[in-house]
């Protein structure tokens, strides 16, 4: 009963503080919306059909092979080809994201393909961006295939030429016609190659392997981040109670030390859990992130995350002597656990060491559990292990916090 009274007092105090609405709700909502918009640019490419947009400047127009390259690229399913305008500013087009890459076919390129070694095509793209990389990958595959097509045509021309030379029943060979026909056959064949790679039944030429909804990263990411940041207020209460002597007075009553700690932890748990509940609801109904596909898994994950956050809040509150300590402690905990936990960016895009360390931190387990639900469409079974690890971290932090807990300054 005393535990509930202490928890109720803390919650009541937080509810009356208008800053709570700001830190616990408005800021996480704003950050979720904003980072979702930012991630959107990673998960969608091009303007309309998801393919990177590539412009081509054919300075060797009129040459059969160079023209054929343009035709080949135009038919490629992995990119969308557009003609480059006469006075187009290539730098602006690529920097502005209007085009993901611009290819220039130099004069004499077609003729050089029949020689020993063709020069590489000049491409302007920003390889540092997801769209630029996507365009370069698609271009590289298509150009390699085109070069293979030319090689096949050369081989066919040689084979027919050798054959005609050996035979007496046929007239002179029209090499160009053989070349054209072979090019045409090979081009058609590449459209439906004998061996294809599929992403679980969907041909990868057209399927995107990226998660479609960018909020599937932003929403759980900001839940994890602000579950930590929100503790700033709860931990502050603990410090203020210690500074004002309220904690010392409480120790003087028949309330045990364990009850005091439990009451404060319960309040922190309830506050963080409610905050998560609001963010999950917002994600589900406003952002289209399907948390309700596995409601019990979400419930377990959120409870585990809230409990770990509450233990962290207690630890920060126990270690802090002033309000400034709480702010600094919460901020540093938020930055470190959010970054290492993959709340800002997926750990798979980070370096080996960072990713390995990250996977040992509680934030990563929470993110993993939410992603199992949202992206892998897995239920309770998949989040049991992450939830248990989070409960373990909660226990660890709780033990340290209790050990360091002092009612007086």
């Amino acid at each position, binding site marked *: 009963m005393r535990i509930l009274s202490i928890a109720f007092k803390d919650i009541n105090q937080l509810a009356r503080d208008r800053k709570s609405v700001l830190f616990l709700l408005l800021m996480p909502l704003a950050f979720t919306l904003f980072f979702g918009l930012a991630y959107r640019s990673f998960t969608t490419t091009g303007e309309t059909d998801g393919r990177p947009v590539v412009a081509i400047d054919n300075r060797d127009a009129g040459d059969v092979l160079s023209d054929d390259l343009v035709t080949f690229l135009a038919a490629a399913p992995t990119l969308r080809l557009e003609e480059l305008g006469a006075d187009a500013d290539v730098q602006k087009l690529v920097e502005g994201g209007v085009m993901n890459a611009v290819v220039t076919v130099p004069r004499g390129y077609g003729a050089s393909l029949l020689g020993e070694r063709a020069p590489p095509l000049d491409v302007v793209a920003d390889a540092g961006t997801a769209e630029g990389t996507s365009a370069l990958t698609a271009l590289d*595959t298509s150009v390699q295939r085109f070069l293979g097509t030319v090689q096949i045509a050369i081989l066919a021309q040689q084979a027919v030429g050798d054959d005609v030379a050996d035979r007496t029943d046929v007239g002179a060979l029209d090499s160009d016609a053989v070349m054209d026909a072979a090019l045409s056959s090979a081009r058609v064949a590449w459209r439906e190659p004998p061996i294809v790679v599929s992403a*679980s039944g969907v041909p990868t030429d057209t399927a995107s392997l990226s998660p479609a909804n960018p909020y599937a990263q932003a929403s759980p990411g900001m839940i994890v981040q602000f579950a930590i940041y929100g503790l700033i207020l709860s931990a502050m209460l603990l410090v203020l109670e210690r500074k004002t002597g309220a904690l010392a007075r409480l120790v003087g009553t028949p309330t045990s030390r364990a009850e005091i700690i439990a009451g404060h932890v319960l309040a922190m748990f309830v506050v963080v859990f409610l905050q998560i509940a609001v963010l999950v609801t917002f994600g589900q109904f406003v952002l289209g992130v399907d948390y309700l596909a596995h409601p019990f898994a979400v419930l377990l994950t959120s409870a585990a995350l809230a409990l770990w956050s509450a233990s962290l809040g207690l630890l920060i509150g126990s270690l802090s002597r002033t309000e400034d300590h709480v702010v600094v402690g919460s901020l540093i905990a938020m930055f470190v656990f959010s970054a290492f936990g993959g709340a800002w960016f997926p750990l798979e895009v980070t370096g080996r060491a960072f990713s390995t360390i990250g996977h040992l931190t509680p934030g990563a387990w929470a993110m993993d559990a939410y992603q199992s639900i949202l992206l892998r469409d897995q239920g309770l079974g998949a989040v049991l292990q992450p939830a248990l690890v989070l409960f373990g971290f909660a226990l660890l932090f709780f033990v340290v916090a209790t050990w360091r807990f002092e009612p007086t300054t």
Partner: protein
Amino acid sequence: MKVIAIALKDVRRNLRSGMLLVMMFAVPLLVTALMYAAFGRSGAGDDLAAVRVQVVNLDARVPFAGDVEAGAQLVEHLSSPELADLLTVEERVDPEAARQAVDRGEAAVAVIVPRNLTASAVGTAQRATVELYSDPALTVGPSIVREIVTGFLDGFNGSRIAADVVTRQLRESGRAAATGEARTAATMYAEWFEAHHDRPDASLSVRTPDGSVAEGGMVGMLSLVLTGMMIFFVFFTGANTATSIVREHEEGTLARLHTTPTEPSTVLTGKFCAIAATLLVQVLVLVTAGALIFDVDWGGGLALALATLALVTTATGFGLWLMSLVGSSRQSGPVIGVVLTVTGMAGGLMTTGFTNLPSAFDHVTLFTPQGWVLRTWKLGLAHASMEELLPPFLACLAIAAALFALGARAMRRRFA
């Protein structure tokens, strides 16, 4: 002299606050260090953890296919020492077990080689489909595997197409059977493919939009992240230190100061100088730390000086103006939090590491003072000419002057 005394007192007070020092220096450097730790020095992708791949080879041997065992060759390629840094391959027998390993998160991708792969490669079977069963929560790993598998299989595809095309052309020229020539064409294509495949820069020569040869741009990205964080926290410091006016008003020291022969404008100027001096120290420390720790190239000396001036004056003006709007020091925390978060986001400070935001966002940032400051710094980092640097720099000065004028007017009315 009074101006200096007021300014020195405030600067001393600012630099003695442990909390302010953490926010001024530690937090921006910590965020940059985290990005550095995550993405390394040389760029994303160089040091990625190896992608865990499960391979199930169901491919069956085909009589008369010679040495061709497409499935085994694919597995050998994926397990080759050249790809050891990229892939960690584990062979499995059961496709379902491989898929379940992916479901459990034990592998990023399962590559399931069909029974008819070799048959399709040598032309005795119809289309073969190699299945990539990937973890939907991952994007980079599956893309790498797809690229490697597709690139390798294109060798078989090309050989088969070469054989088919040669056969067709010989038939059209009147030959009834051309098995030998087809096989020769397939072999020659395979040799050509082996010589050309995986040769860097064989088909494309890539340049960045500014004309330089494309390479990992992590140092550039770190510079932008540090710049974004620096601008954000300099604005925070500007607003936070400006609360001293409100605080001193509440504590009564401002009223006591006004009983002395000190003009209100002198007090305000002293406060302005204190904020500007604190911010200048902050920028200089962060710029030096960025150069020493993260190897940031801040651009030319003049550009850096202009960018610093733009940042310090704008953040000072913004801080004074913002604090002229708050009623009490209790209000200042939430006001600083909300206004700086919103304007920082809209100004592009949180997304400096995002390289492919919609271009329209560049224009949105210019509705905030932070956006103009960021533009000035970005131009400095890009070694832009003075002609390009001056307009945003002058815009920053104009914004700073306007904010200072508005803030000073409001404060004079309130505190004088």
